[in-house]
């Protein structure tokens, strides 16, 4: 696989990038912090990525720069065949309720930016016969809960988009993998109360890698969340309200 990764310097993206590097895939890293990108690039080279791991600037909040970043990645890797977006924004509900500028940015990054990037990449991959697009949504997008519906809404939109993208581009050889992690212990979630079934980035990465290789359209990780969310989706609204979910 020749994969372009957005968000691979941290958390689940970092763990997934290491698995890909470990089996000798070619990688390019896009992101905002040049030092972090360079450090992660060195890590992935040492862990066995094929060739150097080029890095480039991409901010999910600035869609104007996407085409140029994808062009550069294409040049550096020689036509990549996969895009993996693990990057995203997160803030606690109270922060988002108070600070609408913060909210706007989160929606921009998690929904608008990610959708535009995937759309541009899908076109690009379809033109050359196909490829894979993998983006990390969240179980929070499966059902609105009072405690995190703002973040959840951005991911619900993304999930719906990825579903549709998979349907629309299947005939043109583009496979879409939508990952819905449950609570994962990363730097992003430090300080939050840890719910049952919380996962580690490494085990999530292994689940995602299997799905990537098989082109599975929707993956829950850790896998138990598929069943947890099945139950939560079936809960009647009145129960949700009474249980103060």
């Amino acid at each position, binding site marked *: 696989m020749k994969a372009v990764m957005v968000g691979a*310097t*941290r*958390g689940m993206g*970092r763990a997934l990038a290491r698995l890909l590097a*470990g089996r000798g895939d070619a990688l390019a890293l896009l992101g905002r912090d040049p030092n*972090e990108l360079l*450090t*992660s690039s*060195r*890590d992935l080279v*040492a*862990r*066995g990525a094929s060739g150097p791991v080029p890095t480039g600037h991409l901010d999910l909040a600035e869609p104007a720069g996407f085409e140029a970043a994808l062009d550069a990645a294409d040049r550096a890797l020689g036509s990549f065949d996969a895009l993996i977006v693990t990057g995203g924004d997160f*803030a606690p509900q109270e922060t988002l309720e108070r600070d609408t500028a913060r909210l706007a940015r989160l929606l921009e990054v998690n929904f608008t930016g990610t959708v535009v990037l995937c759309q541009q990449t899908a076109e690009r991959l379809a033109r050359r016969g196909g490829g894979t697009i993998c983006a990390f949504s969240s179980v929070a997008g499966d059902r609105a809960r009072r405690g995190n519906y703002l973040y959840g809404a951005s991911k619900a939109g993304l999930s719906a988009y990825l579903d549709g993208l998979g349907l629309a581009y299947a005939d043109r050889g583009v496979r879409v993998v939508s990952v819905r992690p449950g609570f994962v212990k990363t*730097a*992003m*979630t*430090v*300080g*939050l109360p840890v719910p049952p079934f919380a996962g580690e980035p490494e085990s999530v990465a292994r689940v995602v890698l299997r799905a990537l290789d098989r082109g599975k359209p929707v993956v829950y990780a850790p896998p138990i969340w598929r069943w947890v969310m099945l139950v939560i989706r079936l809960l009647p609204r009145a129960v949700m309200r009474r249980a103060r979910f």
Partner: protein
Amino acid sequence: MDGLSLETVAGWGRHPVCRAAVARPERLRLPRAGRVLPRGLGRSYGDAAVPASAQSLVLETVRADRILAFEPSTGALTCEAGLSLAEILRVFVPRGWFTPVSPGTKFVTVGGCVASDVHGKNHHRDGSFGGFVGRLVIETADGRLVECGPDRERELFLATVGGMGLTGLITEATIRLKPIETPWMFVETEPAAGLTEMLDRLRHAGKDWPYTVGWIDCLATGSGLGRGIVIRGRHASRGEAPGVPPRENTPRAVPFDGPAWLLSPALMRAFNTAYYRIQCRRTGGRLVSHDAFFYPLDSLRDWNRLYGRHGFLQYQCVVPRAAGAPVLSELLDRLSRAGAASFLAVIKDFGPESDAYLSFPLEGTTLALDLPYRGPATEDLVHLLNATVIRAGGRIYLAKDAATRREDFERMVPRLPEWRRVRDRWDPEHRFGSALSARLLGDES
């Protein structure tokens, strides 16, 4: 936006504990102000990686674990301080490289190995971890990034190796890996009927073997005092090992805290005797995986829980060669008279000491014992053992200690004033501190 979580922090021995804020960032950076304690995988037994009070921030390095460079012509590996030996082995053993020094568990970080200047079964030949460190990057108390090594900022380097996290935050390290031909170990065991025989066999094996260690049945008394097994090993050559790597074992977890009867002297005695008998029959050479040779305890994850919720102390001391058998038998004798059963007594020959001020190893013999924690009685036993060690000119290992008194410590470490001077220069306000430094150095908590 890395957050903090409030956690109960303890060493591997689960005593003592302290509740404090813990940060686990992917990028190591000191907070601008306040007290800090760096911590790796928490495999030090006592209070070295435990804060003295909730005022201190615990900075766990485990997510800062990136490999920054590897030079195949020399084996030089540059990495962030949170990288674990387990991960180094996973990545580099297939390429023919091994960590130059390995403690008895691979779940330790490079930073933790530097800060404790850990030793392995090859100390008699290769010395301790610090000898393989070419360069460190340290964030000092004032927020500066300082490069140090044997050839630059040497004093800071010598104070940091073995310095138990009290001179600054190690963010990056360059260490020299050593080449191996295969992932297999060639191992031999032989019994020793008593202490003098044990010491003789260890010395003798050390002449030809890179790795040696002895295991003592410390419940045997009288003429059997010090009886046990000598284990010696080396990396297997291409000619003698199978072409396939050894099978990896999946660690089993200990699901609950051990009940008190598990630690009863009768059971311990039965265990030790059985182990001794089994090992006596297993003489001769055999091939084993490096995991089985170096890290037998790692196959049981969380085995520290076997000691129950009061935890345990580990006592490890070294006595100079000249003191020899009489002092060691006095220590074993005190132990058995105190009825403080020990699953594990490990004995090992050390080579010459290093220049690092607080480094533990010293040319002579080291003894390591597990002591179930039973409150003041256990601490009294430690003081008693310490008195013998001090008289012999020996010292204790800070990575395992939780009970030594300040005045005893001062008598054990002649280079302490030098170390203090260097520490005070780089961290005049003692921003870096632990329960250990409060106990042994008189830092305010």
